[in-house]
């Protein structure tokens, strides 16, 4: 636009020059003297400059030219004081960037609607938090396939009902034409899943009801756009490709659209396969026709006009009716009583459902609060910097006003300058946010590579950020702008540099610094509490020794093994071979180690008539050396040995809590119990008691658990643990090599140390501790910049006064004390305000804390101490400068 303005001015000038010349020629032709003629021509034309302005105004370009001038001026001003500008930009970039990053993560985890047709009409049966396979009755969270079909057939309120398997199957399969098995995450879904969601295929077709009619009939698969991209490099012949999973060959019939990640936030499957094919997918679940195989998440779309209340009523009615009549459901007295008490709860599925959301929504809300405070502190800094700048420029502005600059024009200029600063900061912030949100989602997912979040800085976020930065500029640019232009001209001109309106400036700046100190204290206390919680958590006794253990996943089911003696043989051979490796102490297979999942069903103890419905026992199937490999101490009896074989009497080792709750009388050794049904109550003999271990999380209460030898319970054991000494890296490759010597086709995954696995379970606590510490330190830094700025300003303003003090004999120490005590006063006031706020904040966070009280005095005093020391340093620098003032020079300073 400026270019256009210049062209316009040049053209007009040329036009007018022609006019003048022609007029001059005419006058000369009329016989007027040449110089006289030029004079006359010029005089008649009037003020050329003025004319040009009027022409330009006619086009309405004036404001653009002014704006560009202001921007130009603002940028030059920013470059004149690079230090100040850098701090201001950094404050803004970090403040805005952190907010945007946390917000985009929050958006991805909590707020974003599912990328499907009309997501608002979708409902989920239950909370979607449970996953696994249950035989508990009744279960309002997980449903069987026959139940799904009944619900679909009989309901009056849904346009359709769909189901998805509650777990993703992590398998290893072959892409046609390749010889190595590749990891694939498979989501089993009902045929109605895609039609109900209204998801259209990117290529080919999605799954339909036809694919889910008959058990094992149609081996078809739909792949995700992301999988098509990274595994097949968007091969256009994807629809002709086959996948071999287990012994079955699947045809790829379609590619899902790029935005569709599934219905579960944080879990993006690679491949969707009809539920009818579940037995063909390792580990080969067979629940398609089993009413007591409760493994599905049930979802539905409301018919138009049906309210949630109506849908709830109809679903609950049907829940009772269906379960009363479903073949294969054990309707004994106890189950009927339970069914009578059970209600289904429908939840909106507009934003999908997620365990991730359940875990992270609270931490994310806390972090949103934390970064909000950081932004406030950053804004206070900007405000202070703008204030200081406009005060320093009071004389310049006065001169310009005296020269005829309009007041509105000056205010506009100051605002434009703040706007330039804010937009530059905002742009930096966006760049920082893009990087930070990537980092953040990596922190949240913490190595769970299969699960992905769709985190992106989108248009809404960009506007949000821009809004925040522009609001900051306008808010904190307006005050100094108005103030700078309202002062009496004569006073400003008389007063000299940096002196005008000083007390008012000082008051506002002091208030800003005080609030910065208070906010910083709050952030530091929060950070301190989270760090202490994390430390306490990592000190928790897990019951096993997490040092010096490597654990890895072995997927025997994908390699074609069945759950029979050949499988047990394989495990024993691997254990023997690994145990023989130099540096290996002992190794063992198991279903779980820690934070992986649980296996539980009802428990029956010999001599008791009813089951222990109120006691949940976590089972594990393990090798003989599991307790040695994990370092779980034996408290009584013995652990498994070579005498416990497939044919010998069934035995179990139990944890101390199970011993205490289920066998309260006498020693549990030699007593009997069983799983699943009363007729099993004498199946297992207790041969040993071991120390309790943690199953899911470090902060859980002691749980009842038992262990069965895999020799007597042949099933897929995904985990393999090796206790070793020496170099971890070398050991890992030796172990992998040895396993492949036993069977080259065994897929190995999730290789890590036990310590890493434990650390992974506290991801959200670590996220909170790390980020709140980072932001707490950032807050201190920003506050120190604020204090430094204010004290520098005070020193500059009082140079004269300090000079007089020193001329009258005050020593340098006294001057330093004088300045520093000023700073300390603000800090003291800031702390006084901050402490009660921090205490209140701590109380609000209480349920996120572990082993630390919200009013922890150590945390509080450490935070206050750190703040005082840093503030002292920030105040000391200008104080030293004040002390080094030469009295004579100071007195002459005007």
């Amino acid at each position, binding site marked *: 636009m400026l270019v256009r303005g210049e062209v316009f001015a040049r053209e007009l000038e040329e*036009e*007018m020059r*022609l*006019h003048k*010349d022609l007029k001059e020629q005419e006058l000369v032709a009329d016989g007027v003297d040449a110089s006289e003629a030029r004079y006359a021509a010029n005089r*008649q034309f009037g*003020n050329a400059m003025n004319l040009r302005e009027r*022409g330009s105004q*006619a086009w309405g370009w004036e404001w653009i030219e002014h704006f560009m001038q202001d921007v130009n001026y603002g940028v030059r001003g920013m470059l004149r004081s690079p230090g100040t500008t850098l701090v201001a930009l950094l404050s803004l970039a970090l403040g805005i960037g952190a907010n945007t990053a946390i917000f985009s993560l929050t958006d991805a985890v909590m707020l974003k609607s599912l990328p499907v047709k009309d997501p608002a009409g979708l409902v989920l049966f239950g909370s979607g938090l449970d996953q696994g396979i249950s035989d508990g009755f009744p279960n309002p969270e997980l449903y069987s396939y026959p139940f799904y079909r009944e619900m679909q057939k009989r309901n009056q309120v849904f346009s359709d009902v769909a189901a998805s398997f509650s777990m993703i199957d992590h398998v290893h399969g072959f892409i046609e034409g390749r010889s190595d098995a590749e990891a694939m995450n498979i989501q089993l879904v009902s045929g109605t899943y895609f039609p109900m969601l209204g998801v259209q295929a990117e290529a080919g077709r999605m799954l339909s009801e036809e694919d889910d009619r008959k058990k094992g009939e149609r081996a078809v698969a739909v792949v995700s756009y992301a999988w098509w991209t990274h595994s097949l490099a968007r091969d256009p012949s994807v629809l002709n490709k086959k996948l071999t999973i287990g012994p079955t060959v699947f045809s790829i019939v379609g590619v899902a659209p790029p935005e569709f990640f599934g219905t579960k936030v944080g879990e993006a499957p690679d491949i969707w396969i009809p539920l009818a094919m579940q037995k063909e997918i390792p580990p080969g679940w067979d629940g398609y026709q089993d009413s007591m195989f409760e493994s599905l998440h049930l979802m539905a779309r409301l018919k138009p006009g049906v309210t949630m209340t109506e849908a709830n009523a109809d679903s609950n009615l049907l829940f009772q009716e269906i379960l009363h009549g479903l073949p294969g459901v054990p309707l004994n007295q106890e189950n009927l009583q339970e069914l009578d008490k059970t209600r289904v709860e429908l939840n909106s599925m507009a934003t999908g459902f997620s365990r991730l959301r359940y875990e992270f929504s609270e931490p994310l809300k806390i972090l949103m609060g934390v970064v909000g405070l950081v932004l406030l502190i950053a804004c206070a800094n900007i405000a202070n910097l703008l204030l200081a700048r406009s005060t320093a420029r009071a004389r310049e502005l006065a001169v310009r006003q005296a020269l005829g600059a309009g007041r509105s024009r000056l205010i506009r200029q100051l605002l434009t300058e703040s706007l330039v600063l804010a937009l530059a900061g905002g742009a930096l912030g966006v760049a920082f946010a893009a990087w930070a949100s990537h980092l953040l989602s990596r922190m949240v997912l913490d190595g769970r590579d299969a699960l992905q979040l769709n985190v992106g800085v989108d248009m809404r976020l960009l506007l949000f950020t821009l809004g925040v930065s522009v609001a900051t500029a306008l808010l904190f640019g307006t005050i100094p702008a108005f103030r700078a232009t309202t002062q009496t001209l004569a006073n400003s001109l008389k007063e000299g540099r940096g002196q005008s309106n000083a007390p008012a400036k000082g008051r506002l700046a002091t208030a800003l610094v005080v609030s910065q100190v208070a906010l910083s204290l709050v952030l530091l206390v929060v950070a301190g509490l989270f760090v202490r919680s994390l430390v306490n958590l990592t000190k928790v006794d897990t019951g096993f020794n997490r040092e010096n253990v490597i654990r890895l996943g072995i997927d025997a089911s994908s390699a074609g093994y069945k759950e029979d003696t050949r499988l047990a043989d394989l495990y024993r051979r691997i254990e023997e071979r690994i145990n023989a490796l130099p540096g290996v102490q002992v190794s063992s297979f198991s279903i779980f180690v820690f934070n992986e999942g649980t296996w539980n069903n009802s428990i029956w103890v010999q001599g008791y008539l009813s089951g222990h419905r109120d006691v949940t026992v976590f089972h594990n199937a393990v090798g003989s050396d599991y307790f040695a490999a994990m370092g779980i101490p034996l408290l009584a009896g013995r652990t498994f040995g070579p005498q416990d074989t497939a044919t010998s009497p069934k035995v179990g080792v139990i944890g101390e809590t199970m011993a205490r709750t289920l066998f309260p009388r006498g020693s549990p050794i030699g007593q009997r119990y069983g799983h699943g049904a009363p007729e099993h109550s004498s199946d297992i003999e207790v041969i040993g008691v071991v120390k309790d271990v943690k199953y899911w999380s470090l902060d859980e209460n002691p749980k009842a658990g038992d262990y069965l030898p895999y020799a007597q319970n042949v099933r897929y054991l995904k985990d393999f643990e090796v206790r070793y000494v020496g170099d971890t890296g070398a050991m890992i490759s030796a172990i992998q090599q040895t396993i492949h010597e036993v069977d080259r086709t065994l897929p190995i995954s999730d290789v890590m140390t036990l310590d890493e696995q434990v650390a992974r379970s506290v991801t959200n606590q670590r996220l909170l501790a790390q980020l709140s510490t980072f932001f707490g330190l950032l807050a201190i830094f920003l506050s120190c910049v604020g204090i430094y700025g204010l004290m520098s300003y005070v020193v500059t303003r009082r140079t004269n006064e300090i000079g007089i003090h020193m001329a009258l004999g005050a020593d340098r120490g006294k001057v330093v004390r004088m300045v520093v005590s000023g700073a300390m006063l603000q800090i003291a006031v800031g702390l006084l305000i901050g402490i009660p706020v921090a205490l209140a904040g701590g109380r609000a966070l209480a349920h996120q804390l572990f082993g630390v009280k919200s009013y922890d005095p150590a945390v509080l005093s450490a935070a206050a101490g750190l703040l005082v020391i840093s503030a002292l340093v920030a105040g000391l620098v200008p104080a030293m400068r004040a002390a080094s003032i030469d009295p004579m020079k100071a007195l002459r300073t005007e």
Partner: protein
Amino acid sequence: MNREELLPGTLHLLILKTLARNQQMHGYEIARSIQQFSQDVLQVEEGSLYPALQRMLIKGWVKAEWGVTAENRRARYYRLTAAGRKQLEVEKAQFDRVIQAIARVIQTA
């Protein structure tokens, strides 16, 4: 030379009429033409002429094009648009009404 002030609001009318009479003219020709037709009574101030031309450009009554004069100098030539022609009628009608009104006031003794 004694020249009369232009009646307020008539400059657009004069420019439009002048341009209607000729294919295209540059600024100086417009000023000269008005002066000649009025037999040197009406003198268009250059300070008014060019801003007026700019305003008329914005309103779309005229359009401008760079060309070359007989003496081979670059000049901006203005020509009337269809909208300008319509505007000329409007302004002429308005002018007539005002003049008749003034005449009635003056003649009624």
